[in-house]
Each structure stands twice: as structure tokens, then as C-alpha cells.
């Protein structure tokens, strides 16, 4: 291999390019050419380096020096000083605001990164089908520690002290749940992993199971040790074939190694895991429904109490934790509760994985400490809003959550703040919406999901949600009246107040929160019958601005229904009675003469 030559990585993330990163890249190339270095120094544009607030950023190899806040004009000095003379440019190094120290390398800058991977620590890093690779990355070390150095109550205390709360949506303290199950003496207890991930757009559980299945198996065994259970069950939706296959492989390998089964690692502790398949009903993510489904019954919830930790699967004490929750267990055992509780906010510790989706550049999975703000997530990790549009709202908690708006951009995201803002953490779906999104339609979209996924057991959820959806449909068709909004609000409150399980109790959230935050948009639909975002087809009208129209006839020729008329070289007119709102004319017009009203 050739001797390593100098390479400059220029951050091409939106934050940096928007901040003259492109000009910097050009200048660097020009400077190198001017010094005849273009063949010996390689300049490349990379994806986001994740230090957006400090950008534009560059990294120089093989020195591994990162310069932040680099202006296009700095190109000359970088080439002349760093590249040609090998001298660091101190003023371009990042200054730690706390200590005042200059930070140069990846390692030094690392604490300033917005993303911290705990649950996702091994995803994409190890071979999920090799238990050896997992062990090389510390798998089963925590189980070994627990079995050798800790009593069940020590484990429970550690998890309690860590402040870990359930990542599946409710945010119930994991350690307390384990303690309840521990205190309920029974010959048989169960440890269940809830892998019935169902929020639209959320796929962190799938990614963890596909990328690091042993993390979950190990944590379930630790939980079994802590609550004195010998049997684990993973309830996973059958639509996750890859996760299922990798789990099966992992379970087989763990059994072969004696890391599952009888007398694990020579101890008295025995624990084994079985996979149960779900048919993909969203409501089976609710723990009592999940348990009924595993028992072979219809997947529908029952009244709590009794809570599963007291009486769950086959009426035995049962712990039901979500995949991401389990994925946090081993690091807590290995690094201690203080380490974990030092991350996050006062009442929400550790990190949370979010699935970024919607009108954002870098869609995908991210993991950030609790307390990170929505602004940081969107701009510094998500790469900002797509096509430079304006941020309008972000939906958290999937169909059970509500939307956060501009006023929430700097609110630290944690369990309690989200609830205070009228939304919820849910499983971590985060859907970003821009100025083009109609919030009434957004609410309708989420409600449609709930209507589809309601189990039908209780009347407010079964019928109420359907009626709300019908009313929203009515409103988006321009048939609503102002009184409908109050009716909608009452329905929301009653459905929340009376539904049997979390699904129904939270299903009105998208409606309530949009109604609260975007009331004027609803009003526009029911009073002047207009959709401000121009999304509701029945409420829009295509219109030709006479001043811009040159009479080229292109629109009239493309109109499939002959709704456009006009003389050549004269302004044309659209007949709204005939127009089917297909938008073909607008696409065809070269003079921006056609608008939506």
C-alpha cells in the first residue's frame, strides 16, 4: 500500500455547506493547485461530521486534526501552514467552553458530539451472526459480573439507581418494575421482551435486534437472574424476518456456549429464551394485550391492575420490557449506575434512540442523551429541513403522541417535558413536518392509523376514533362548520378519559395537539374553507395570474379535462367547475402564472 498521504475531509453536511462550506472546498482546491499540490493532497467532501454548531469543519489526515469554524478565506493558511509546513493552526481548533483548552482530535472532541450510542453501541459494528464478535465487544461480560459479584437485589438496586425508564413509551422506571416482580414470590416467573414495534416510522428495536441480538439476550438473562425467573420470551412481530432469523441464530449460539440454558457459566443460574411471534397488531405492543397474544388468545388489553409484574403471562409475575430498554442494561452493569445517571436530565436518564423521518435531510436512527433539544436533533443531527423549507412541527410518540412546534424547539426532550408539551416519548418516532404540511391532514393521518389498529374492545376507541376520523375527513373536504371543532375537542377528551388501554387513551393526542397549536389552520378549513398549506385537494383551486400568463396555451393543451380556455397570446382561465386539480397545468407552466389558492 502506498505511503499515507495527506487528505482533507471537508464536511458536506447541510449545516456546514449552508455556512459557506462549498466555497471553502473550492478555495482549498484552488490553493492546492496554486501550490502544485493538487496531486499529492486529496480533498474530499464528506457527510455530516456531527459538529454542526461549530462548522464548517474539516479534518486532516493522517494527523487526524479537526478544524472548526473554518471560513473560505482560511484555505490559504491551511494549505500554507498545515499542509506545507505541518504546523497546527491553533485559532481554528475548537476551544472547550468549560476548560478553555484547545481540542484537536476526534477523541478530544468526542464529548462535544450530540449523539451518544449506548443502545446502538454495536449496531453496524459487529457481525450479528457471530457470538464471538459480540463477545469481543463485551457481550455477556455484564452477565458474568452479575453472576459472580452481585445478588439479585444488587442488580435491581443498580438498575433502580441508574434511573433507567422503559423505552417502549410509558417510561415506567425499569428497576421498580423488576423489584415488584422480585417481591412477588412464585415458582415460575417470566422475562418478556416486547419486540412488537409498531409505531409508524419507528424501527430502533428492529435495528438493535438485527445488529446486536446478544445485547438483548444477555439483558434478559440478567433480568431473569434479578427477578429469579428461568424463562424468557421474546414477542416479535413476524414481519421482522431478519430480526427473527438473527435472534434464532444468536439464541442457538448462546446455548452452544452455555450462556443460555442450565447452569450458565458454571453458576446455579439457569435461563432460556423462546421466541413468540406476533401477527403485527399495533395493540399487542400494550403489555397485557401482548401477554394475551402469547397465551394464544385474542390480542386485546385487559384492565390493570393487576400489573404483569404481579400477574402476567399464565398469571405468573412477568416482566415486560422493550428491546431498547434491555439494550441499556449491560452497559449499566459494567459502567455503573452513576455513569448512566450522569447522562440525561433530572428525571430521564441515559439516552434515547429516535427514528428521524419526514421532511428532514438525514432520515434514520439517532441516539442522543435525554435532554437534547429538538433544534439540535433537527439541525445538527438531522441535517436540517429538506429543500430549505421552514420547520413547522415535529410529531413524537407516533400516533399516540402530539406535535411539537417552533416554541418547543429549545425544550430539552425527555419523558416529562414531552408530556408537558402535549406529546409523549412513545417508542421514539420523530416525524418532521414543514410549511407544506396541513396539520388537519396530519392529525387525520395518525388517526387513520389508530382506527385501523384499534382492537375494538372498548367503545370509545372502537367507535369514537372512527367518528373523529370521519369528522376530520369532513373538515378536510370543506364540509365542516365551526361548531365541529368544539365537538372534536370534546370527543378527544372523552376518548382519552374513558378508553381502556394506552392506545385509546393517547389516540386523540395528534388531534388535540394540532387543534391547540394550529387552531387557525382548523378554523381556515371550517370557516373560509381553505387549506393554508394547500394540501387538502377539495379546498384548493388552481388559478391563473393574468399578469404572468403569456397565452402560450401549454396549460390548456396539457389539461386532461379541458378546463382551461383562452385565446393564443391572451391570458388563460381555469374553470373550477371542470378542474380536477391534477396539477398538470402548474407543472407545465414556464411563467409561474398558475398558483394554488
Amino acid at each position, binding site marked *: 500500500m*502506498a505511503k499515507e498521504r495527506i487528505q482533507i475531509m471537508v464536511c458536506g453536511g447541510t449545516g456546514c455547506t449552508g455556512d459557506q462550506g462549498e466555497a471553502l472546498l473550492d478555495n482549498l482546491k484552488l490553493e492546492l493547485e496554486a501550490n502544485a499540490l493538487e496531486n499529492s493532497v486529496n480533498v474530499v467532501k464528506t457527510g455530516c461530521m456531527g459538529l454542526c454548531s461549530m462548522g464548517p469543519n474539516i479534518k486532516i489526515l493522517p494527523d487526524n486534526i479537526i478544524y472548526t469554524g473554518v471560513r473560505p478565506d482560511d484555505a490559504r493558511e491551511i494549505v500554507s501552514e498545515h499542509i506545507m509546513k505541518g504546523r497546527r493552526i491553533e485559532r481554528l481548533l475548537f476551544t472547550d467552553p468549560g476548560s478553555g483548552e484547545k481540542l484537536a482530535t476526534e477523541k478530544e472532541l468526542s464529548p462535544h458530539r450530540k449523539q451518544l450510542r449506548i443502545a446502538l453501541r454495536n449496531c453496524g459494528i459487529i457481525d450479528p451472526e457471530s457470538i464471538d464478535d459480540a463477545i469481543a465487544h463485551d457481550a455477556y461480560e455484564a452477565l458474568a459480573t452479575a453472576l459472580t459479584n452481585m445478588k439479585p437485589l444488587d442488580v435491581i438496586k443498580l438498575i433502580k439507581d441508574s434511573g433507567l425508564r422503559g423505552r417502549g413509551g410509558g417510561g415506567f422506571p425499569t428497576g421498580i418494575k423488576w423489584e415488584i416482580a422480585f417481591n412477588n414470590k412464585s415458582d415460575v416467573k417470566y422475562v418478556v421482551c416486547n419486540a412488537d414495534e409498531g409505531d409508524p416510522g419507528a424501527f430502533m428495536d428492529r435495528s438493535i435486534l438485527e445488529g446486536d441480538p446478544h445485547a438483548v439476550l444477555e439483558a434478559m438473562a440478567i433480568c431473569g437472574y434479578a427477578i429469579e425467573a428461568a424463562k424468557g420470551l421474546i414477542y416479535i412481530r413476524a414481519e421482522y424476518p431478519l430480526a427473527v432469523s438473527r435472534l434464532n441464530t444468536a439464541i442457538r449460539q448462546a446455548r452452544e456456549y452455555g450462556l443460555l440454558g442450565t447452569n450458565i457459566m458454571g453458576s446455579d443460574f439457569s435461563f432460556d429464551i423462546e421466541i413468540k411471534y406476533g401477527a403485527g397488531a399495533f395493540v399487542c405492543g400494550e403489555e397485557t394485550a401482548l401477554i394475551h397474544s402469547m397465551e394464544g388468545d385474542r390480542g386485546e388489553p385487559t384492565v390493570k391492575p393487576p400489573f404483569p409484574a404481579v400477574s402476567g403471562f399464565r398469571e405468573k409475575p412477568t416482566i415486560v420490557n422493550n428491546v431498547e430498554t434491555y439494550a441499556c442494561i449491560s452497559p449499566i452493569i459494567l459502567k455503573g449506575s452513576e455513569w448512566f445517571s450522569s447522562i440525561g436530565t433530572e428525571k430521564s436518564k441515559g439516552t434515547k434512540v429516535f427514528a428521524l423521518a419526514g421532511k428532514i435531510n438525514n432520515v434514520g436512527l439517532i441516539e442522543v442523551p435525554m435532554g437534547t433539544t429538538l433544534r439540535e436533533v433537527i439541525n445538527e443531527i438531522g441535517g436540517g429541513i429538506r429543500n430549505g423549507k421552514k420547520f413547522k412541527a415535529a410529531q413524537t410518540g407516533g400516533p399516540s403522541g402530539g406535535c411539537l412546534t417552533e416554541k418547543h424547539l429549545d425544550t430539552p426532550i425527555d419523558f416529562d417535558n414531552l408530556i408537558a408539551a402535549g406529546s409523549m416519548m412513545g417508542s421514539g418516532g420523530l416525524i418532521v413536518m414543514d410549511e407544506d404540511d396541513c396539520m388537519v391532514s396530519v392529525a387525520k393521518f395518525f388517526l387513520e392509523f389508530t382506527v385501523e389498529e384499534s382492537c375494538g374492545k372498548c367503545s370509545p376507541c372502537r367507535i369514537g376514533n372512527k367518528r373523529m376520523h370521519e369528522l376530520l375527513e369532513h373538515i378536510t373536504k370543506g364540509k365542516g362548520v365551526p361548531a365541529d371543532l368544539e365537538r372534536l375537542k370534546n370527543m378527544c377528551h372523552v376518548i382519552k378519559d374513558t378508553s381502556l388501554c394506552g392506545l385509546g387513551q393517547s389516540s386523540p393526542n395528534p388531534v388535540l395537539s394540532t387543534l391547540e397549536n394550529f387552531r387557525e389552520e382548523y378554523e381556515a378549513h371550517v370557516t373560509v374553507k381553505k387549506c393554508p398549506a394547500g394540501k387538502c385537494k377539495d379546498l384548493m383551486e388552481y388559478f391563473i395570474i393574468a399578469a404572468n400568463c403569456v397565452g402560450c396555451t401549454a396549460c390548456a393543451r396539457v389539461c386532461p379535462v379541458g378546463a382551461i380556455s383562452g385565446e393564443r397570446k391572451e391570458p388563460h382561465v381555469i374553470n373550477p367547475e371542470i378542474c380536477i386539480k391534477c396539477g398538470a397545468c402548474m407543472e407545465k407552466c414556464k411563467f409561474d402564472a398558475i398558483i394554488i389558492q
Partner: protein
Amino acid sequence: MPKINSPAELSKHKKEIREKLYGQEKILIRVHMGTSGLASGAKSIYEFFREELEKRNIEATVINSGDMGYSFAEPTIEVRLPGREAVVFGNVDKIKADEIIEKYIKNGELTDGILPANYRSI
């Protein structure tokens, strides 16, 4: 593989495995093959690397792994050259894969489309 009968045996095994998997001066390529990766064509990229590296007489280990979460840039791969930090490439199609082999794997020369580690891990 015999059973691991004690925590000490686990540590011993871990040490051996680390040496075996990561101790050698060998090129390691991970193709991220979770559902997101596979849906974007990661499987053909995985096969491309296996076949092409052999054809081009480059000794390297090609393995699959889960996704890193870069859904916007799938398929993604990670390349570890001996003695260097691992580098992740995004939007890898066969043309890009070819470029990665020729430029980075053969010559250590970076190409556009790198996804720098933008996170810290434990």
C-alpha cells in the same frame, strides 16, 4: 466450540477472539445488512466485494452486520484498513464500490461520500 464454564473462561475466550478478529493486519469490510440496508441493495454490494476482492487478489474479510441508522445514505459499508480508523461510506452502489476498492482499499485514498463518525459511543 466447547461450553464456557466460568466467567474466567469468558474472559479468556474474549481475549482470543479479539486477537483473532481484530489483531491481524487484514482489511475488514462490513456491509451493513439490516432491513434498511438490504432494502437498498446491500446484498449485491456484499457479493460485489466478495467477488471483486478475490478477482483483484486483495486479501480482505467481508462480513455483514446490522444497520448503523444512516437510512438516508443506504447502503452503507465500513472499511477498516490496518492501522487506520474505520471509515464508513454511504450510498454505495457498484460504481462507488469499485471506486472504494481502487482508491481507498488499494491506495488509502478517500473518496467523496464518506460518512464521518458523527457520534460518540461507550
